[in-house]
């Protein structure tokens, strides 16, 4: 028997549930777990979509829906432009065993005309779509995430053993602005681990060497060089405007200076340090987890904390820790996963083992405690241990504020 479009549509309507745009919006607000599927074609999606919707064109629904919505008991609302294609799509989903499916009557056109919220997809050029295609395929990144990365600014303190691999991968990932603080020049002894530099750049400024490598890998990236030593006098100016700071320095003085300024500016710091075969890694997320001073209130004496130039280091150790810093940075920028805030990860290259320790905020921390915040607001910051320039590791002032 021949069926007309009208016959088919009548049949489908009788078999599915339809919700008006107003009902869908109420549902969307009330239950964040609801899945919205936009089953229109790509050129329609690019003209705007409902926030949070998954784009799954009608022709690909059967093929891809199980991967995108693995839980068949999850409530699903399908929409198209006017509510016709989504009605057919809803019936297909029911046939596939999805238990709670509805089609939005009136479609995106009515949604928009009612003044309900909608978004334009992030714009990526044709070349960017190719370059970042493996990111775009990952639902947790996608075009929105990629656009976020392109608009992000990450500051590396040091273009050394930790910074080198992190910069390379964040540049490859399309982190749009990479700042680098380093006043040093490339030395032959750096090249055993500082893979962003090359043999023919020995003697050149590290910032310039890093810029060449980064832009050769990805010309999208803006590199901002800060050819100066990070000091208490310039730190606030240098870190301003960055979304994340990656700490790859090799002195305690710099680490404390950075910590205090980053807490005050509420910028997360991805911290790592290395010694021979071992590394430590954590994220200092101001006011949500501990800061560097909560972990190490005072610096150790120099004999207890030699740097790489004294103690040596297996080249891959800063490489591995620097890559883990890049991973934490991407999670912070994208707002996905669980960062290492409040956890310290220890890596032992000889054992091939990772150990995780719990970190806590020090309620008496001279930098990140409530009392410290109040004191800063009042213009009288609490005194904290300092590392003197001429006499390293001598404590200046008192540990006032500490119980």
């Amino acid at each position, binding site marked *: 028997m021949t069926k007309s479009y009208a016959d088919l549509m009548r049949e489908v309507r009788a078999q599915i549930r339809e919700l008006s745009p107003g009902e869908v919006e109420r549902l969307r607000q009330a239950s964040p777990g609801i899945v919205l599927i936009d089953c229109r074609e790509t050129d329609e999606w690019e003209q705007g979509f409902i926030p949070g919707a998954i784009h799954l064109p009608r022709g690909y629904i059967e093929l891809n829906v199980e991967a995108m919505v693995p839980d068949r008991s999850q409530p699903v609302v399908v929409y198209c432009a006017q509510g016709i294609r989504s009605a057919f799509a809803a019936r297909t989903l029911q046939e596939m065993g999805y238990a709670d499916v509805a089609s939005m009557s009136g479609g995106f056109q009515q949604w928009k005309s009612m003044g309900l919220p909608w978004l334009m997809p992030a714009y990526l050029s044709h070349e960017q779509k190719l370059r970042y295609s493996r990111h775009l395929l990952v639902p947790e990144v996608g075009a929105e995430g990629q656009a976020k990365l392109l608009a992000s600014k990450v500051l590396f303190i*040091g273009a*050394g*053993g*930790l*910074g080198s691999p992190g910069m390379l991968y964040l540049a490859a990932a399309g982190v749009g602005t990479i700042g680098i603080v380093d006043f040093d020049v490339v030395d032959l002894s750096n090249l055993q681990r500082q893979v962003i530099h090359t043999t023919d750049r020995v003697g050149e400024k590290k910032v310039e060497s890093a810029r060449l490598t980064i832009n050769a890998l990805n010309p999208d990236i803006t590199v901002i060089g800060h050819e100066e030593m990070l000091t208490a006098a310039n730190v606030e100016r240098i870190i301003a405007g960055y979304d994340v700071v990656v*700490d*790859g*320095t*090799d*002195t*305690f003085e710099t*680490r404390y200076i950075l910590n205090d300024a980053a807490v005050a500016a509420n910028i997360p710091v991805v911290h*790592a*340090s*290395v*010694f*021979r*075969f*071992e590394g*430590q890694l954590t994220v200092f997320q101001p006011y949500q987890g501990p800061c560097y001073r909560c*972990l*190490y*209130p*005072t*610096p*150790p*004496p120099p004999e*207890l*904390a*030699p*740097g*790489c130039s004294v*103690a040596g*280091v297996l080249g891959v150790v*800063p490489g591995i820790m620097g890559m883990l810093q890049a991973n934490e940075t991407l999670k912070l920028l994208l707002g996905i996963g669980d960062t290492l805030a409040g956890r*310290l990860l*220890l890596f032992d290259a000889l054992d091939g083992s990772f*150990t*995780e*320790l*719990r*970190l*806590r905020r020090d309620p008496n921390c001279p930098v990140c405690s409530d009392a410290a915040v109040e004191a800063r607001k009042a213009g009288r910051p609490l005194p904290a241990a300092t590392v003197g320039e001429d006499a390293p590791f001598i404590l200046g002032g008192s540990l006032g504020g500490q119980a």
Partner: protein
Amino acid sequence: MSVVRIPPVLRASAGGNKQVEVPGATVGEVLAALVERFPGLRQQLLTEEGELNRFVNVYLNDQDVRYLQERATPVGERDTLIILPAMAGG
């Protein structure tokens, strides 16, 4: 006997050991036994009054003993103490 993990910077003062088994019913007792066996560790771990130096963190399994009962924290037979000084290298 509980296991104490010695950080790389302190291994030279601990006979080159990466970890040692030390008796003691509390964190304080374990550390006292440790520095008795390896006197070179005393100055690096403890103040003259026998308190833990502020630049050294000690974890009982994964918890900072400063947020447990410090030196009075009980230590079981199968527990691991991790000594963790700050590292600067980058």
